[in-house]
């Protein structure tokens, strides 16, 4: 029985040439991250102030090959190897790493969000009594995982990428070592995270057992259309539950609010935007590439997840008095809207993917912006309680206006970005007049109305209510935070007023499977 092993191992290894351009973003991030670590190790305290700047520079440099790959779109999708007739591609990892329009949009999203996160973190980290150079190196590691994730078309590389995203995040959630809340945030996140990984892996091992390959396209080929076996269903359910933890879908969301409140606020923004997006990318890769024939199993499960995620998230968010917790639960609800297109992906997987990606892009802009305002306000009020936002219009009119834009966008009120994201989701849901899609659209619409209540309640606090302590001195906004707010406001407004800018990118999105 072991004969095949011997022949496999003894086969000649022929290495096709590597497509360096295709993996340049990851290589730059890896090399840059290592360089930052070396610089930190050599000069220690003397370069402490430089580390955030260097890290953000690494993110921007890594963005260059993403843009050139996009501009040079003719060669897409590209793999890890340059395919040449003379050199047969025989690698085990053939087709596991694919660079296509979809992964490029996401890589751009991840790198830009990481850049904004560094802007948000700079003052927070240097003013608190924290280790700070390690923090940026860990962010770089986590973002590297996200870049790899968006190109992964293989169960193993998806798992490794997901852990590369998560493990640094466990550490960073517990970053405020002397604060019990932060310890608790880290511990809960870590325990739930590894639990989710174990469940995910078990599902993956079942999928591998059915298909005989870890490559997503092979799995799709191995499972026939309409074929249904309990093992397949079990594998799919376990895998989706594993991703459900990462994207904080109800009922697997319990870690999210505690972790979000206890973690350092810039990291909360990172978890709520980038880390969640990475979970969605993994989910899309597996569902769209590996399970196109299993819609009858996947769709109902995701349908239920999406419906209860948006409903429960919104209902609990209504009762919150702490803005960070409210944003956490609102993020849970938003994850429900993002799951919705995947509940009707059968036959329209391209449209469903581009709706989710559009939502991810716009959600990143508006949510990062909202967290930026929370961080700035906390510099004055030292609190994230809702009541402490009273009277903000009197001492920070510009900031109040920015926050209002983000809140309107989160609530989905035109003309700012969020409405376009929701519109795309509704368009996919109602396409094809399927009962399940329309029912989900109705649930989503009701939820949008509920959500508008608590979003607008925050705006009411800021515009009309007096400040709780009567202190109306102005807030000094550091330039880094100002830049972050400026960038996110611009992105939120542009994506709403000129939705073409986003949809020009996301309309091309289709997940290439690899050979």
């Amino acid at each position, binding site marked *: *029985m072991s004969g*095949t092993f011997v022949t496999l*191992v003894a086969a*000649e*290894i022929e*290495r096709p040439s590597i497509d360096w351009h295709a993996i340049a973003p990851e290589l730059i991030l890896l090399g840059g991250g*290592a360089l930052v*670590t*070396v610089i930190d*190790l050599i000069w*220690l305290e003397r370069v402490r102030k430089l580390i955030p700047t260097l890290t953000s520079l690494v993110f921007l440099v890594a963005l260059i090959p993403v843009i050139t790959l996009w501009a040079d779109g003719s060669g897409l999708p590209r793999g890890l190897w340059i395919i040449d007739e003379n050199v047969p591609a025989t690698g085990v990892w053939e087709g596991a790493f694919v660079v296509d329009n979809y992964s490029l949009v996401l890589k751009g999203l991840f790198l830009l969000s990481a850049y904004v996160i560094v802007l948000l973190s700079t003052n927070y980290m240097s003013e608190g009594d924290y280790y700070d150079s390690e923090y940026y190196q860990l962010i770089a590691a986590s973002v590297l995982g996200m870049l790899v994730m968006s190109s992964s078309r293989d169960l193993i590389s998806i798992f490794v990428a997901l852990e590369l995203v998560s493990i640094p995040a466990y550490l960073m959630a517990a970053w405020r070592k002397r604060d019990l809340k932060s310890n608790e945030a880290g511990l809960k996140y870590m325990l739930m995270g590894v639990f989710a990984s174990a469940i995910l892996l078990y599902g993956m091992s079942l999928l591998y*057992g*059915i*298909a*005989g390959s870890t490559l997503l396209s092979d799995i799709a080929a*191995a499972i026939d259309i309409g074929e*249904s*076996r*309990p*093992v*397949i*269903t*079990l594998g799919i*359910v376990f895998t989706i539950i594993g991703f459900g933890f990462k994207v904080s879908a109800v009922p697997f969301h319990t870690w999210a609010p505690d972790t979000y409140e206890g973690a350092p606020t810039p990291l909360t923004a990172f978890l709520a935007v980038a880390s969640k997006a990475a979970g969605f990318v993994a989910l899309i890769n597996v569902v769209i590439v590996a399970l196109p024939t299993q819609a*009858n*199993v996947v769709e*109902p499960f995701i349908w239920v997840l999406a419906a209860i995620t948006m409903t429960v998230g919104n209902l609990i968010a209504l009762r919150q008095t702490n803005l960070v917790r409210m944003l956490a639960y609102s993020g849970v609800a938003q994850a429900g809207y993002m799951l919705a297109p995947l509940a009707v992906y059968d036959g329209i997987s391209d449209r469903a993917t581009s709706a989710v990606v559009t939502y991810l892009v716009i959600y990143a802009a508006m949510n990062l912006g909202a967290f930026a305002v929370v961080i700035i306000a906390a510099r004055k009020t030292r609190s994230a309680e809702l009541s402490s936002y009273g009277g903000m219009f009197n001492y920070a009119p510009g900031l109040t206006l920015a926050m209002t834009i983000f809140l309107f966008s989160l609530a989905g009120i035109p003309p700012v970005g969020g409405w376009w994201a929701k519109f795309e989701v509704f368009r996919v849901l109602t396409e094809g007049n399927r009962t399940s899609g329309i029912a989900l659209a109705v649930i989503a619409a009701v939820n949008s109305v509920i959500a508008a209540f608590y979003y607008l309640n925050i705006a009411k606090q800021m515009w009309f209510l007096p400040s709780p302590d009567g202190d109306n001195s102005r807030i000094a906004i550091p330039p880094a935070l100002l830049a972050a707010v400026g960038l996110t406001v611009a992105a939120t407004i542009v994506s709403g007023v000129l939705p073409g800018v986003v949809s020009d990118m996301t309309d091309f999105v289709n997940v290439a499977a690899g050979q």
Partner: protein
Amino acid sequence: MGVQQNVAQIPVDLGSAQPRAVAFAPVSDFLREYIVVGLFGALAFGLVAAFIGLASIFRPDRPTADKVENYESGVDPVGSGWSQSQIRYYIFALLFVMFDVEAVFIFPWAARLEDLGVFGLVEMVIFIFILALGLAYAWRKGVLRWV
């Protein structure tokens, strides 16, 4: 046994729990699969209940002061079981675990070094460099100092 044959066989082995009875005929395929998933979940819960339930039924429950004491090699324990202990070794153990397990990647590479050639060598040097960077980090930040 060929590969193809196995692909077909494994799931059949696993799927023997699938209800094939005619009684399930009116239920759609989709629902039937989820019934199996539900059965799996019920089995998991049943297992837990069995573990905990059976243990509590069969074990005699006559606690005395001596019995509930922690067993400490026959010596009467003093103080709380959760005493603070020195964690000097702990960090070294953690670092060891980290570097030790990377050998998993180095062994297969070493076994096939000749075939992988210079390219493989360069790759492994990069891999070990990144690992060494971690060690250098621990050293430079004073983690390796005996406290």
